């Protein structure tokens, strides 16, 4: 935590991207989270991903609820749209915004309390509807702002900083998302940007509900021995199923048959997800296989990370609804009230 703004000076090798911004231009205000918070690393990964994707900041809406994680949208993409909702209500506000204006890129940032406790109902429905968004949970297994009580994602048997054992079963948001029909599901670790940045990029390119559960250690209340969300524990138990390279659409695509051990998925925006397997039998296109794999490995205490599931044929909420091409907020009175004749026609068709 610092009172000083980050100096404006930057490394001379820092290059602008295709839309003329350097990585520093995607930063927000200086973070007021605790020093060493995993959430700050996630913010840095979002900044990196948006810079690499040449995203125009004004095309992004970042929404969040309440909590340490939900403070973070203030610390990245300072030139984007932002909205802090009531606790746990980010998904419904985001759904509304997305319905009204589908032309923006929606980034929902939430925490384990915001999504797995107070907002779990919102999370569930947002996933099953296929709202076109990146839903990012900064998961530290603890209520940091209220000084370290277990959250709903804390593993049974893990220990609090004060030494209390958690006896409740954990909510596994990844398993839930898979079951609820999310078309992009990933898990990562704030301490591994090499994995996290491509996942965020792939999620941004995905059309449909893209969910990323990021284990993000709380240095103040959940980074001790006995915790299953500490830097040390996650590093020791991290079972990464694949390496992801995102090949952006504008680059020439030459490979026809992916080499052995590589799975390629073409996304709607033309980008290619190239997945190099580290678990030989893991196919991220198989939803049920993924659910089984994750459950089995989780039982052994392993933290399964990587791109866990992606549906190449995903459809989003607007497609389900069959809404018009034009974002609804741009429709004029003439389109919205086409007149009695049209109403008459509709009524006739229903008789």
């Amino acid at each position, binding site marked *: *935590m*610092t*009172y*000083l703004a*980050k*100096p*404006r*000076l*930057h*490394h*001379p*090798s*820092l290059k602008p991207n295709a839309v003329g911004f350097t990585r*520093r231009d995607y930063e927000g205000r200086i973070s007021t989270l*605790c*020093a*060493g*918070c*995993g959430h*700050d*690393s996630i*913010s*840095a990964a979002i900044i990196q991903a948006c810079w690499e994707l040449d995203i125009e900041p004004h095309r992004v809406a970042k929404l969040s609820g309440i909590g340490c994680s939900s403070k973070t949208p203030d610390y990245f993409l300072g030139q984007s749209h932002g909205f802090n909702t009531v606790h746990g209500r980010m998904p419904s506000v985001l759904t509304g915004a997305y319905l009204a204006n589908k032309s923006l890129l929606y980034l929902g940032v939430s925490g384990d309390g915001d999504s797995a406790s107070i907002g779990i109902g919102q999370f569930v429905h947002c996933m099953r509807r296929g709202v076109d968004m990146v839903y990012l949970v900064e998961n530290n297994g603890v209520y940091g702002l209220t000084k370290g009580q277990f959250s709903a994602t804390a593993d049974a048997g893990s220990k609090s900083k004060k030494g209390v054992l958690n006896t409740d079963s954990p909510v596994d948001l990844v398993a839930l998302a898979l079951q609820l029909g999310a078309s992009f599901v990933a898990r990562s670790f*704030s*301490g591994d*940007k090499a994995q996290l940045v491509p996942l965020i990029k792939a999620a941004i390119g995905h059309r449909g509900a893209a969910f990323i559960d990021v284990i993000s*250690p709380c*240095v*103040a209340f959940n*980074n001790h021995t006995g915790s299953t969300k500490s*830097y*040390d524990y996650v*590093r020791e138990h991290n079972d990464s199923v694949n390496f992801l390279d995102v090949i952006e659409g504008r680059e020439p695509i030459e490979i026809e048959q992916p080499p052995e051990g590589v799975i390629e998925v073409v996304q709607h925006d033309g980008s290619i997800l190239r997945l190099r397997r580290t678990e030989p039998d893991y196919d991220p296109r198989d939803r049920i296989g993924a659910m089984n794999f994750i459950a089995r490995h989780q039982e052994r205490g392993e933290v399964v990370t990587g791109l866990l599931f992606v549906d190449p044929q995903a459809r989003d909420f607007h497609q389900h609804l069959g809404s018009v091409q034009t974002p609804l907020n741009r429709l004029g009175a003439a389109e919205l009230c086409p007149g009695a004749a049209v109403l008459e026609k509709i009524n006739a068709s229903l008789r």
Partner: protein
Amino acid sequence: MQSTDIGHPDYFHKVVDCQWACPAHTPVPEYIRLIADGRYADAYMINWKSNVFPGVLGRTCDRPCEPACRRGRVEETAGHTPEPVAICRLKRVAADYKGDVSARMPDAPAQRNGKRVVCVGAGPASLTVARDLAAIGYEVVVYDGESRAGGFIRTQIPRFRLPESVIDEEIGYILGLGVEFRSGQRIDSMKDLLAQGFDAIFVGCGAPRGRDLDIPGRREAAAQIHIGIDWLASVSFGHVHRVGRRVIVLGGGNTAMDCCRSARRLGGEHVTVVVRSGFEEMKASPWEKEDAMHEGIPIRNFLVPVAFLHSEGRLTGMQFQQVRPQVDAQGRRQLLPTGEPDIEIDCDEVLIAVGQENAFPWIERDAGIEFDRWGLPKLDEQTLQSTHPKVFFGGDAAFGPKNIIWAVAHGHEAAVSIDRMLNGENLRERPIPAPLLVSQKMGIHEWSYDNDITTAARNKVPWAPLEHTLNNIKAEVELGFDPQLAWKEAQRCLNCDVQTVFTLNKCIECDACVDICPMDCISFTANGPEAELRTRLTAPAQNRSQDLYVADGLKTGRAMVKDEDLCLHCGLCAERCPTGAWDMQKFFLEMVHAGPGCRTGEGVRRAA
């Protein structure tokens, strides 16, 4: 790469670019902070200890610190031309506003140690030796041919750059230590001097001979042609009051700049500087060239003098060949005639400032001191001892013409040599200075230094109006910073002496420092050979002259690698570090000067 040994005194010293570049290794950021704090006398004393002539150097130093200054590297993205902190001019502020520091000066020792040292010449090198040795009890005698001490400082630097009162004050502090100054006595025999039984002799007589230019017409028009340094000395002593209306100054060094600006003040209406080389290759400091041009003096380049033109025994002008530079196959730059006709420049007087030479006509060749084929004494570069064990050289007399700050550095080293020798100690085994590292942490985000980085551009030193300075050769041109401007300029100092110190076993590899670093200096990555490692850091480390700080053996098997090149020393890495693995620690290093600190005790042990 091997993990960095931060215990080595050179490692963090190199990070303090200004101090590392300074021949005397003055702790620059330390005194700049004191200036920002209004503690001018404290700032002055740090300087005085290290470089002996802060007031003089604050106006005339060659400033090797400024091209080295980190500001010049990090400001590329600040929206203005990168420029170093005005270190030299801040030094002058300390001298200008220090008040009376006489009470803080060491007293002449009540008791002498019985050893006698003689210095030949009363320039900056000799005076440094005298100060260092007199203060610790040596009896020091200084000889000079002139009536007043100072050497080059007094005779050649024009008064409009350096007022005499500044010289008098700072030489006064040295002579006040009980140094015996024998003025107006030029030494004309080394053998005689050796016979007088001094325990050590220091030769600091400078490079007193100005190079001449032997081309047609030199002898015929001799009355209007002068050697630059001799002419400057005559101006300084008031023997010369006027110069012709049209003056040509030959040469591109700082002496040429002093000559042309002096001529401009003594009636030279059309003063022209003519240089063989190009403008960029001129030896004069950029700011001295600027000052000359500001006074309406044109500098003409790529002209080689062919002849002095004269008529009836009077100089009328000069003839020059036009040349152009060409790089030959060996990469050497040559000046080739362009083939265009020679040009003539009319003039009434010519000042020749094409270099200086060493001359030791008073040292007999059989006095036991060997010279090399360039006529310079053979010296041990570290100890400055000549082939005669009792005779030491320093300043321009040692390795040819350099500048004041080098003379001071030589003086300190020679004084250490003499002190060790006369205490029966080996000259070459000198103690290395021990740096102090002290944490600057005061609280969660409180540091005992100002870590808010400004992007402000360098402040200009105010000048006195030209119509005033051009009519009075004693009127100082630069007015110096006032306290407000000095404070603003001091804010630009990046406090490079406040070091980022990394403790490996405290690090939990949370990446917080990597994310916050504004200059992308920090990486956590697999170790590798330096050349390859430099290419795959968070930002490439392209400046090979700046070190990588490597701490290998983290829990994940990676290494922490920090590129020291562009670090702003803002301390944000340490503020963001949850475990205190990063700390900001002030590095303070003072050179070892003559005195008990420079001795290792071997002489005492041997005697016992």
